[in-house]
């Protein structure tokens, strides 16, 4: 590269000009990355060594926040466990059900128009609205689900009010809004070259084998994409759980604030990011909340380092092609 540039000073000049243009176009975004990403990332680490309540100046307290986090915080592992539950169950369940629906639509040749829209639409409903709707549907007293169950002589469970069923209830919500990944799967399924199926059929492959040897290899990239983005979304699972708790608890937040209902029932819906919110913006322990955030960063970063390269869309190579 250098040798070429030396031989052709004109090219080097045009390269420099191009770089200037590029950075000109990128300037606002670069500034944004620094102010809204790089700086707060570093500041989070700094804050995590302090005690800070916004009212008085931050005080350096060394590793005290981390000591509390790892050895004394009574709920951080409950919160981490709940988040892990969503990562391990919500993500695969959504992927599998979305894939099944997409395959059904594809093989029934209903991959566009009404049917596709019908299954996609719930994903568009604002999450707050869909959560409120689900808590209503499953409310133990007058909810349609338990009313219908009662009609069949079944005493319905407490759903969002039962610590054991609150997370599975959100799983049902997660399935209802599977449209976002279903659409991607559908597009990928339709992109599978038909000749491959025909060839497999000539070889006498049955349905399962066709899926295993033709469909699957073709849609692996989308599956990985859905997995990576799904895990990332599950790590930051917040709105659905917070709103479900607030609505299901039926408690008026008369004077305490949002932090009061978070986790209901019995911390079953307390996710890690909500715990950051409670400690940071309900208890105003901003230093400690930063320590929690740093731990989340480490976990998320490890995950990204492991998996980012496997998603073609997230790697930069092609830009240079």
């Amino acid at each position, binding site marked *: 590269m250098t040798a070429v540039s030396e031989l052709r000073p004109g090219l080097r000049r045009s390269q420099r000009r191009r770089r200037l243009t590029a950075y000109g176009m990128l300037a606002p975004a670069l500034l944004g990355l620094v102010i809204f990403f790089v700086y707060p990332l570093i500041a989070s680490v*700094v804050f995590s060594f302090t*005690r800070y*309540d916004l009212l*008085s*100046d931050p005080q350096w307290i060394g590793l005290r926040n981390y000591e509390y986090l790892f050895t004394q915080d009574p709920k951080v592992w409950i919160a981490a466990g709940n988040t892990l539950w969503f990562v391990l169950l919500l993500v695969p369940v959504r992927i599998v059900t979305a894939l099944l629906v997409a395959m059904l639509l594809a093989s029934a040749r209903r991959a566009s128009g009404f049917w596709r829209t019908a299954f996609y639409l719930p994903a568009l409903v604002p999450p707050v609205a869909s959560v409120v709707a689900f808590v209503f549907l499953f409310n133990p*007293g007058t909810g349609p689900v338990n009313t219908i169950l009662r009609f069949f002589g079944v005493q319905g469970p407490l759903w969002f009010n*039962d610590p054991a069923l609150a997370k599975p209830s959100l799983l049902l919500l997660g399935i209802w809004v599977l449209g976002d990944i279903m659409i991607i799967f559908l597009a990928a399924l339709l992109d599978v070259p038909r000749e491959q199926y025909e060839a497999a059929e000539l070889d006498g492959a049955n349905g399962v084998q066709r899926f295993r040897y033709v469909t699957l290899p073709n849609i692996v990239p989308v599956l990985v994409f859905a997995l990576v983005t799904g895990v990332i979304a599950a790590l930051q699972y917040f709105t659905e759980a917070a709103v479900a708790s607030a609505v299901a608890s039926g408690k008026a937040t008369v*004077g*305490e604030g949002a932090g009061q209902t978070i986790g209901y029932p019995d911390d079953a819906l307390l996710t890690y990011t909500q715990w950051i919110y409670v400690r940071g913006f309900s208890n105003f322990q901003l230093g*400690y909340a930063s320590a929690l955030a740093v731990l989340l960063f480490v976990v998320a970063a490890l995950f990204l380092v492991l998996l980012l390269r496997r998603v073609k869309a997230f790697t930069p190579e092609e830009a240079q092609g």
Partner: protein
Amino acid sequence: MKRSIAAIAAVSAVSLLAACSGPSNQEIDPTAPAHLEGTVSLWHFFSDREADVIQSVVDDFEKANPDVTVDVHSGQDDEKLQKAISAGNNVDVGISYSTDIVGAFCSSGAFRDLGPYIERDGVDLSQFSDTTASYTQFEGTRCALPVLADAYGLYVNDDLLAAAGYDHAPKTLEELEEMALKMTTYNPDGSIKVLGFNPLMGYYENTPTNWALTVGATWLKDDGTSNIGSDPAWAEVLQWQKAFVDKIGYDKLQAFSAGMGQEFSADNAFQTGAIAMQFDGEYRTAFIADQAPDLNYETAPIPTLAAHSDRYGGGYVTGNIGGIAKGSKNPELAWALLKYLTTDTAAVVKLSNGLKNAPTTKDALASPDLEVSPQFQTFLDIVANPNSMTTPPSKVGAGYQQAMGDYWNKWQQGDGGDLTDGLAGVDKAINDSLSLVEGP
């Protein structure tokens, strides 16, 4: 934007290492201003009907001070109030629903030290009861004044009481349990139809703070650390409560509670007659008058365990508190409004009549204008009763009550393990979080 970044840089670089700067002793004018003018903002947590009551008193203040405009922000819970004060929003006077924030707000300076104002204007603090005076200061700093008190007692549905063959409210928990079991009826499918008393911790006002009164259990030691494990009274009430829960069945109670109406709505289970007896605050009398005027009920002090019957007559006393925010741009106006809301007899009586909260000044209590129903009188007696208790201010706010509530919740489900170990665990959780906010 640039300025803010520079500010951050300064904060991160310099003040991280700076020593703790406590609330500064602000200078105030030697005399109160003769004429008040300007705009003052009032942030409070009330909403709907209760907000209207506050507004009516604010209107009176504006009438008395024609050049003053009060900018009212209703529905502001503690979380929002603290956000607004920390962010330097335009908050002059803030009213919180509970005393829990006093510890944090006094020590951090979120609420200003009222001492200089009180001294200058010669406000007589002895007009407040000892309890309300105590929970509005922290470690010697008075940063708040009581804005009415809440007292908690026992509400009893007289029709259900009579139907079960009783003519008086229970005085001991043993009595309460026996009566409650008799009042409880079931649906054909085995689920609860009417519940005599809901023993579940966490239901409506079944808070550890109310249960504490049944045995006179204490929360904190003098140094602010937890006393829960060291006070044997806690174990007594926990054991009684769990035994009661088990008699009906945790799952059954849980199913019933999940289907109950929201506490501050017209569907409150006591108001609809689904619950015969419950712990509640004096404000419930106003909700009943508004939403269930035909309900036939009486009120009584919190019952005690028979072994603690000498403590009978009291209840849990807490209250709303008001203070002047750190960033108040017009502290004199804020002080005038706060003083009016907390010490003007006409204002206190009007607030009390409207909100059905207990007035906190002696003059207001003695005022002939104070409307007192028999049910409400119980709570005025509770406020005056020496057996009544409150929750001490702490730097962890209500954190120590939450720690207790969390363990209690496990305990009533049978997941609490050994009670002594469990309560020691509560001690540790409270002391750990205290040391996190207090420092080494």
